[in-house]
């Protein structure tokens, strides 16, 4: 974990309201593990004070990138920044995905919308190829399909409106695939919480291990404020654990879904 002022290499619209931001951060990039995040202070937010957390998408040489959707004050302000401008970044943060061992389980990635941003590095660094299930509302919400295919992964797309790939939810082809063969496979997922809960239950049903990257509203990002907690099983009960520190990636069997409502 380092706090650094980094320079923007590029910050361009990907599709629709999705953007890709690339920053040069030579000291941070060697430390990055799949599933970790960067906590970014957007300098032009005026009365909004907090940093914004983003999954680290790709690492290339001395740069890393994030993939984000403009959804509010922070991301709107971020989208207006251009190459050459500077940002304060604390990264890499959090406990990421376990990279599969060579010859180990076949990874099944499940991404909802820009959840793929958190999974790309895992796909890239996994010693064996697997299947990436990518789902979204519309064609526009399916991100980095080509890039994951370029890693020689089997990519299966679903959209809710049927505008691209199979029509339906991302969990449908996952269930179909696990029904076909669940042995020696492991699920890694990132996306909206209801999707993660569904994926967790499917994994349990098929007795397949699953690691889920949880998206909980965050504040400090480094474990002091206790904002981003989720209920996690302990020896004889459960306790609130920090998504920014013990997570964002949790073993799905440890999450106490019924306490999250």
């Amino acid at each position, binding site marked *: *974990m380092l*706090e650094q002022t980094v320079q923007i290499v590029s910050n361009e619209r990907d599709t629709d309201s999705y953007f890709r931001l690339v920053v040069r951060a030579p000291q941070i990039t060697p430390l990055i593990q799949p599933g970790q995040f960067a906590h970014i202070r957007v300098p032009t937010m005026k009365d909004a*004070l907090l940093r914004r957390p983003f999954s680290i998408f790709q690492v290339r040489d001395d740069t890393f990138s994030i993939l984000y959707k403009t959804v509010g004050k922070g991301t709107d302000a971020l989208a207006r920044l251009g190459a050459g401008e500077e940002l304060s970044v*604390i990264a890499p943060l959090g406990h990421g995905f376990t990279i599969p061992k060579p010859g180990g389980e076949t990874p099944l990635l499940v991404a909802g919308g820009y959840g793929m941003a958190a999974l790309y590095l895992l796909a890239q660094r996994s010693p064996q190829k697997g299947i990436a299930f990518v789902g979204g509302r519309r064609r526009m919400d399916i991100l980095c399909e080509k890039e994951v295919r370029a890693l020689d992964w089997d990519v299966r797309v679903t959209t809710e409106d049927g505008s691209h790939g199979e029509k339906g939810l991302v969990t449908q082809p996952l269930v179909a695939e696990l029904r076909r063969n669940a042995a020696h496979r492991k699920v890694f997922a990132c996306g909206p919480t209801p999707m993660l809960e569904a994926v967790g239950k499917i994994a349990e049903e098929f007795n397949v291990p699953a690691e889920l990257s949880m998206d909980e509203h965050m*504040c400090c990002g480094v474990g002091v*404020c*206790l*904002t981003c907690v989720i209920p996690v099983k302990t020896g004889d009960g459960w*306790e609130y654990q920090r998504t920014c520190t013990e997570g964002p990636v949790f073993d799905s069997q440890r999450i106490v879904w019924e306490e999250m409502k």
Partner: protein
Amino acid sequence: MNLSVQIGKLKLQNPVMVASGTFGYGVEYARLIDLNQLGAVVVKGIRLEPVRGNPTPRTVEVASGLINAIGLQGPGVDGFIKKYWPFLKGLKVPTIINIWGTTIEEYAEVARRFDALGGVGALELNVSCPNIKKGGAQFGTDVKLLAKVVAACRKATTLPLITKMSPNVMSIAPYAKAAADAGSDALAIMNSYPAMAIDIETRKPKLANVTGGLTGPCIKPIAIKLVWEAANAVKIPIIGMGGIQNAADAIEFMMAGATAVAVGTANFYEPQTVLQVITGIREFMQRQDIKDVREITGSVRTAE
């Protein structure tokens, strides 16, 4: 140039500390800043037993501020001593432990436990957390209960006692006097201000706890006024806090009457703030030819 100040019998190398609840147990920030530069480390509130805390969402960002309702999640006295004390006792700067309880007896018991631990810099009595049903602000907004809690802790320990005051009172002077008379060595002013935010689309409160405590730059003028009023009412030192983002903010608190200051919410978005404040105070003293930081305290010119 002298930057050191005194809180009861506790000497601080400089007047800049952190606010309880915004700095975890110190260790979380040790990789980002040199903790030994601080005046003191102040840890999150501890009661006897572990505390699970409130459901989420626990914080919400608002204009120039943050509303929180964490609910004092914590490991309890034993958990704290086991998990965090080995790290904290190795620091060169004092650790101030924020303590609370649901009864006066519990406050006193926690004070006794930390007194017995040895090596603790001071205890800060949290009688002002707005986010818990029992304890906290219940004690800080009733002048008689406040006096009883402070007196009970005074009997339980010889450690310096700092009473963290609630801003949610008509006038802070009688509360400040009650705490001082009951044996508090200093006051910490202020805790968060009770607040609420609503999502207009869902018509639901933005916090699971419905209400929370407001902190950040938006509360600074309120805190400055409370420090000024309390400084006119009591002689014991005041630790000023509420929205400090830079040295100018800290100096303003000192001019209002604070002997020391604490950086709170700013730690969440800029962990370097506390070091920048120390550097900035030094620069201000150089520029204004001030030899001793204590000269700044209470130097506001209200009479002219």
